[in-house]
C-alpha cells in the first residue's frame, strides 16, 4: 500500500460506521452511529469532510437513494465502501490488532 493510504483514526471510525450501517449509511446516520458507539461528539462537517477525503482516495462511493416516501421527500446521498476502501480498512484494523497483541490492552479487548 502506497504511503499516505493508511487510515487516520476518524477515517477508520467513519468506515466502520458505514460497514455497520450497511445499506442505510449516509451523513447523519454515520454521525449518529459514531456518537452512539464511540460516545464521541461528532459534527456533521467532520463526517462530510472525511467522506469527501475518502472518496478522493477512492475508498467510498456515493449513490442517490430513492426519494423518501413522503410528499416532497428528497433522495439521500447513500455511501458505501469500495473494494479499495474495504481492503484499506481490513489492513488498518489488522495492523491495530497485531500491534495490540501481547499488550495488556489485548486482554481487555
Amino acid at each position, binding site marked *: 500500500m502506497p504511503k499516505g493510504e493508511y487510515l487516520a483514526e476518524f477515517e477508520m471510525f467513519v468506515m466502520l460506521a458505514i460497514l455497520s450501517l450497511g445499506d442505510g449509511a449516509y*451523513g447523519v446516520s454515520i454521525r449518529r452511529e459514531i456518537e452512539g458507539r464511540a460516545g464521541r461528539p461528532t459534527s456533521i*462537517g467532520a463526517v462530510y*469532510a472525511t467522506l469527501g477525503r475518502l472518496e478522493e482516495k477512492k475508498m467510498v462511493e456515493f449513490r442517490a437513494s430513492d426519494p423518501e416516501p413522503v410528499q416532497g421527500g428528497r433522495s439521500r*446521498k447513500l455511501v458505501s465502501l469500495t473494494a479499495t476502501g474495504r481492503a484499506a480498512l481490513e489492513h488498518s484494523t489488522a495492523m491495530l490488532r497485531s500491534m495490540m497483541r501481547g499488550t495488556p490492552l489485548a486482554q481487555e479487548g
Partner: protein
Amino acid sequence: MASPPRIARLLLKLAVEDRFSGEVMASLDQEFEELVATGGERWARRWYRRQVLHSLGPLVRWRLTRRSASWRKAVMSVMRSTPGLDGRYAMRNLFGAPSFTLVVVLTFAFGIGANTAVFSLVHSLILEPLPFPGGDRVVQLWRYEPNTQGARSVVPPARPMVAAWQEAGDIFDEIGGYTEEELHLSTAEDVEMVMGARISPGILSMVSARPLVGRLFGLLEGIPGYGNTVILSEETWVGRFGSDPGVVGRTVLVDGAAHTIVGVLPGSVRAQLEAGFFGRRPKEVLLPLPSDPVGGWSGRPYIVARLRPGVTAAAAQSRLDEIQTRVAPLIEGHSVWFPLVRSARDATSPTLRRGLWVVLGAVTLVLLVACANIAMLLLVRRVGREAEMRVRLALGAGRTRLAGEMLAESLLVGCAGVLMAILAARWMLTGAAWIAGTALPEIRSARLNPEALGFAVALGLVTVLAFSLIPILHLGRLTPAGAASREWPRPDGHPVGWRAHRSLVVAQVALATVLVLVAGLLSRSLGKLLAVDPGFQTAGLAAVGLDLSGAGYEGGVERIAFFEEVVRGLEGRPGIEAVGWARFVPPRVAGAIGSVHVEGLLPAEDTQPEPHAGNWVAPSYFTAVGTRFVAGRPFTSAEISDRAQVVILNRTGARRLWPDGRGGVGSRIQLVSDYGPAPWMTVVGIVPDVKAWWLGDDPNRMQVYLPVSDVPPRSGVILVRGVEDLGEVKTLVQHEVRRLDSGLPVGESYWVRDAFRQTVARQRFQALLLSSFGVIGLLLAVLGVYGVLSLSVTRRSREIGVRLALGATRGDVSRAVLVQGARAVAVGTSIGLALSYLAHGFLADLLWGIEALDPASYLVSLASIGLAGMAATWVSTRRAMGIDPVDALKRE
C-alpha cells in the same frame, strides 16, 4: 416556526462543498426541527451552533488540502508571482516585528477612526441635505428684530406675514406651520401626558409622507368646525394600540375632547421631520393646526416652507423683505420686525455646527500627529533595515523590486489599519452618543454612513502612499557601497535620519500643543459654566409637570384652586421640606420681548424692547426654591384671590429701572410687548437674580414675576424639596392629583439641577471630546519624543561609550541628550503657540466666561506639554546615562 441561527447556517453553507451542500443543510435542518420538538428551540439553536462551530474546521481544512482544488493552484501562482512574493515577504516582515506592526496599525486605526467618526457626525448633521426629496430647499421662516447689542431676537412670524407669504405664489411651492405641546391622551385603560404637535397639511406633503394606515390630514382639516381628527405616530400605534389596523375611525380623547383617528404616520417620516425642523421631543400624536380664514394659522406656529426650484434662500429673503413693507402696518404692537429666511439644515443647531467644525479641526490635528508617529516608526524601521537593503542591492536586487516590497508592506498595514479604523469609528460614535446623552439628540441620530466609510478608505490610502514615498525616495539615494561598512555618525555628530526625525517630533509637539490648548480652553470654559450659581438652591429640588388643559377646568380660579389643593395635600407629607408651584421653573421659564415703563418717568429715547424672562408664580414658589428677598415680600394669597396688579422684579431689573435707587418696592411699572401695554402694576418685592434659561445666561437680564392670577395657567410645575427619590416625588404628586381628579395624569418629572446641567450639554460634549483628543495627541507626541530620543541614544551609544572612555562625565552625556530633547520640545511648543494664536479668533464663540487667550489655560496647557515632553526626554536620558563604555566599545 423555529428556524436555525441565520449566521451559523450561512457560514456552514459557505464552508461546505457545493455537491454536499444540499444534503448537509437539509439533514442538519431536519435534525434541528426534531430537536426543537423534543428539547425546545433554545436548546436546538445551541446545538446547531455547536454543530457548525465544530464543522467549520474540518470542512475548511479539507478544502484547503484537496488535491484537485483549482483555486489552490491559482493562489499558489499568485503567491509565486512578483507582487505575490512582495506581499508574502511584506507579511513575513510585519509578522516578524509584531510590536511595530501593532503600534502602526493601532495608531492608524485611532487616527483614521476618530476622523471617520467625526466626519460622520459632520456629514449627517451639517453637510447632508434633509433626508427627503427637495430637502435642500426647505427653509424655516422667522421674524427678527435687531436689539441694542446688535444681536437678533428671533421669533416665529406674525400671522399677517404668513398670510402674505402664502399669497405670493412665486417663492414657495409649499408652506406649512406647526406648534408643539403636551397633550392628554386617554385610552381605554389610562390617561397619559404625551408630546404632540399641531401641523398644517403642508408639513407632511413637504416630506412626501405616506400613511402607514388610513390617511393623513387633508386641506379642510384645519378649518375650525370641520371635526376633531388625530394622526397617531407609528410608535404610539404599536405601543398603545397593539398595531391594530382597525384603529382608523376609532375615537380617542385628546385633552378631554373626542378625536377620530384618521391614520398612522410611519416612524421613518417622523424621524425625517425631526431631523429637519420638527423640534427635539418625539411627537406621539398629530392634530391639525387651525387655519385662519384670512390666511396663515392661529396659535403663532413655527413656519417651514419649501422654496420653488431655482429660488435661492437669498432671493426668497429679498422678496420677503419687499412684502414686509406692505405687511408691517398690519402687525399689532409697536416693534419693527423683519422677516428671516434660514435653510432648515443650517437652522437645526448653529452652535453645534460651529463646535463640530472645531472638533473636526481638532481630530484632523490628531490624525496629523498620528501620521507623524507612523512616519517616524517607518523611518526608524528604514534606518534599521538599511544594511539589509544595501546587501540586497549589492547582490543585484532591483530597486523597483525593493520599492514594490515596501509598498506592499505599507498597503498591508494600511488595509489592516482601515479595517480597524472603521471598527474604531463605530465605537467612537457609540461613545459620542453616550457622551451626548439625551440632551443632544442630533448626535444620537448620526450613523456611520457610506460617505464616511469612503472617506476613511481614501484617507487611509493617501496616508499609506504618503508614507511609502519617504522610504522609497530614500531608496534612490542608497548605494550598495556601504553594505559592508558600519555606519558612522555624520560630520555634525547626529546619526543618519536625525534631521527628518527631529522635524517630525517638532511637528508632533506643535500639533499636540494646539490640541491641548484648545482642550484646556474648552474645559476651563465648561468648568466656569458648571460653577455658575443658578441663583437659587437647585440641589434636591424636583419638578413635576401638571397640565389641566382639556380636563374640564375652564375657570382660572378653578385651575389655581386645583394647583393650590395639590400643594396643600403635599405639604403635610413626611420628608417633604418645602413645596410650591408656578407656571415655570428655571431653566425653562418663558421669555417675552418688550420694554418696561416706570410710572412717572418718561421712557428714555433709546429704550429698545429686549428679551426678558417672565414667570407666573404662586406665593409658595418662593418658599420652594428658597428665595431670600432683597426687599419687599412674596405675593400673598389675598393678592392672588383679588387678582391684584402686583409684580416682583429681580435685583438687576430694579437696578436698571431705578439706577439712582430711588424706587423699587411700592413703585408702579408697566410691561409693553408687541401685544400692547399691560396694566400698571405695583412692585411688591425684589429678589436675587436667577439664571432663567441656561447657566451662561446674560447677567444683565430683566426678570419679571407675576402672580398666577395674572394669567391663570393651564399647565404648571409642582416643586418639591426634600424627597431623595425622583420616582417617589412623582408618585406622591400623582397620588395627590388622582385624589382630586382620578382621570388626570402628571407630566414629566425631573431634578431642576439636572435640567440646568442639560443646558450646557453642548459645551460638555465639546469639552469631553476635545479633552480626549488632547490627551491622545499629547500621548502620541510624548511617544514620538521618547522614540526619537531613544533611537538617537541607541545609535549614538558607541559615540557615547567613546566619550565616556575618554573622560566625559555622565553629567555631560545626559546634558547633551536633555538639550537635544528640550530643544525639540521647546521649538515644537513655540510653533504650536503661534498656531493657536492664529486660530484663537475661531474659538471665541465657543467659550464662555474666559477669553480665547485665557492666560491660565495657556499656562496650564503649556506646563503639561512641557512636563510631558521633559518626562519623555528624561527617560531617554537615563538610558544614555546607563551606557557602559566597555560594553559599547566591545560591540564595535
